[in-house]
């Protein structure tokens, strides 16, 4: 693909994006990166909660300027991150007239995506069967915690908690620890979104060849479990409970995260083979250890870690990275997000770019992950403010008259303000 020459694979396709939190919004954003026009649909009484949530994560942190309630729902850093590039409408789906707007939009689109709790779309009458009745070749993707099937369909699972019932949580943890560990974020979301993206793209190919639509039922839990599928194959063959492996690798030894100079600064090092080991032992002046083979390095891993850390703890992480990479040993500073923003490689790839948001101001966002390198794809527009494109979408895409839109607006069926207050 090549954005410069306009060759994006989903150009000409429209997506209705009824999504919330992270997984669904990220899926819609990626479809936009691949060329689709994406319309984020939210209801005034049930907007994407990421607009209003205040958690320790403080997605909507203090911008240092007084904000009206209307402005406040448009500055969430989480919302604006994963909805950039989309158009946005605010329409009350629980109202029959609002439901009709949704269905009319879907009829003018090719793909519907949603990640509400299973059951929500049926209750509102905007499920696959409702859309397929008027648009038989629609591709409709539902992304949920466990899938649309019983018995677990109604159980709650956002992208962070869903690690627990995936198998991943119980395997994560420090070396030989009794206590499991969570990844430091909502890992089920991006993995689920990428899995759903794959399904949607396959469905688009199927549609282009056959003219048929498809319903897709993707579960974040399944996507997490697939990533550690070897553990399931292992269990079925051996029925053995394995100790937690911490930062160690089944083959590479030594491998670890070592303390370096500075507060909470670390370097990650992997020794893939004997060649890497000789180079590392030479760099850290541990020549008496140089002859150890992989088996011996695994047996004496603790001692070796001590020798490595004695060396790393006197040096800067970035300096260690450079010194070891110069002799071909995989090593990398453990970057925090501030360091990540300045990482020279990500900068050279064009991983991040600035965009002007009408309320927040200048924002730095990730670019399309498939078009980085020499000519990264620019970010074309910020995330929509709530209800920002109501009028454009209803008149432009649905051909409604200005008067008809006025009427919906006066009736509160469409709105550019939310009707729930953050507590």
């Amino acid at each position, binding site marked *: 693909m090549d954005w410069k020459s306009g060759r994006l694979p989903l150009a000409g396709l429209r997506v209705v994006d009824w999504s919330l939190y992270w997984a669904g919004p990220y899926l819609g954003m990626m479809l936009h990166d691949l060329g689709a026009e994406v319309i984020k649909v939210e209801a005034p009484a049930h907007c994407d909660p990421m607009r209003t949530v205040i958690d320790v994560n403080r997605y909507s942190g203090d911008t240092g300027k007084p904000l009206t309630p209307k402005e406040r729902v448009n500055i969430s850093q989480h919302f604006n991150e994963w909805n950039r590039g989309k158009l946005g409408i605010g329409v009350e789906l629980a109202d029959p007239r609002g439901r009709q707007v949704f269905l009319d939009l879907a009829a003018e689109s090719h793909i519907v995506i949603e990640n509400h709790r299973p059951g929500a779309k049926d209750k509102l009458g905007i499920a696959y069967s409702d859309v397929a009745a008027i648009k038989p070749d629609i591709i409709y993707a539902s992304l949920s915690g466990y899938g649309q099937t019983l018995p677990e369909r109604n159980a*709650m699972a956002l992208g*962070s908690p869903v690690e627990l019932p995936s198998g991943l949580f119980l395997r994560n943890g420090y070396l030989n620890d009794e206590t499991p560990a969570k990844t430091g974020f909502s890992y089920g979301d991006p993995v689920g979104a990428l899995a759903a993206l794959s399904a949607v793209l396959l469905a688009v190919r199927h549609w282009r060849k056959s003219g048929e639509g498809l319903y897709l039922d993707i579960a974040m839990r399944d*996507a997490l479990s697939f990533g550690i599928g070897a553990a399931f194959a292992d269990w079925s063959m051996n029925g053995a409970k394995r100790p937690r492996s911490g930062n160690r690798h089944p083959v590479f030894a030594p491998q670890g995260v070592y303390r370096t100079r500075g507060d909470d600064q670390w370097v990650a090092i992997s020794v893939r083979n004997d060649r890497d080991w000789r180079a590392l032992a030479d760099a850290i002046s541990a020549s008496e250890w140089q002859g150890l083979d992989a088996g011996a390095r695994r047996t004496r891993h603790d001692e070796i870690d001590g020798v490595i850390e004695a060396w790393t703890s006197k040096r800067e992480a970035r300096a260690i990275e450079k010194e070891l990479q110069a002799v071909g040993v995989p090593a990398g*500073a453990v970057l*925090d997000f501030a360091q990540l923003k300045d990482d020279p490689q990500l900068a050279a790839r064009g991983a991040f770019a600035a965009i002007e948001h009408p309320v927040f101001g200048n924002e730095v966002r990730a670019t399309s992950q498939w078009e980085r390198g020499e000519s990264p794809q620019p970010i074309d527009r910020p995330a929509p403010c709530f209800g920002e494109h109501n009028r454009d979408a209803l008149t432009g895409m649905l051909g409604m008259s200005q008067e008809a839109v006025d009427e919906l607006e006066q009736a509160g069926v469409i709105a550019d303000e939310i009707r729930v207050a953050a507590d």
Partner: protein
Amino acid sequence: MDVLSDLRVVEISRTSAAAFAGRLCADAGAEVLLVEPPEGHALRHEGPFRGDVADPETSAAHLHVNAGKRSVTIDLESEAVAATALVSGADVFLTDLSRDILDPVGLGWEALHERVPSLLMTRITPFGDTGPYANYAGSNLVSLALGGQLKITGDPGRPPLTNFGAQTEYQAALSAFAGTVANLLLRDASSEGEYLDLSIQDVVATNLEQRGTSFNLGIVANRAGLTVSATYGVYPCRDGWVYLTAFAPALWDRLKAVVQLDRLDDERFATQASRLENNDELQAVLTEWTLNKSSDELREFALQGYPLTVAKDEESLLASEQWKSRGYVSDIDHPAVGEVSVLGSPWLAGDPVAVKPAPTLGDANALLEGLG
């Protein structure tokens, strides 16, 4: 979804990155030829092995990630002609090898594109083709470190912690598969080949939750351990672990409805802001409750839609009604292993397809006859 059944994919891989992407291609119906060195693919040597006895045919990593592929053995140093011939006859070339290996034997993009203009090529590497780290050596751990996901995982006061499995390679494989299918959509229309240069670091740094908060508000996330906050985190229960999710008003009301403790009506817990202010007291109250409950009791609450999520292990998942109803597990009779359970690609659960076994080493070597 046999959407790729018209395609032949040749995969030359050394890590899970391209190998996972090849697995996804096989599940979508493509014929996937895995080119292995004579001693077998790296995942054959990773384990765990059946009975914990090293055997390149019974490595669990291989049985999962290489399922549905066929195997040809080629020594790239002495038999590169065969590899190049195979790739030239394919629709998709999937690899994670370095250019030092590919270019000299004619498997670099420029040479391949000239020879076979319709070929799609996807190369997944730790840092991509361009930029100052293009020649850096990589590993899953190093990609986690330089992609920003390592620093935030683990307990405060302890070292950053790797996630179990080859998670960066898995994320990159999902992204690479999607990108490859996207390029295929273009090729369907144009008959022209496309090249995808996919950097694992790029994907890992993209898949970060609080990046915007950090980049634009200067709030830098760090390790938070099991429990981010009292209303969003892991709690111990009598025999396991449960996640409570109550950071929004409606969720908090639902949690109170199931916990049923008067102490939660305390005005210190009346709003999310005050719950965060009195985080430790709230966490203590909730911990007292969770410790009195078993995983089974909590799971019943979860099935009723209360905002809690209970941990499961491989054993209970493989036996779960949910995966049975989704057809998500294939119990395969593997020629070298016997019975082994293999999960389907994540989109197959709604539309189950029986997964085919991973190949025995060189099971498709007949295809190499006459290729030099």
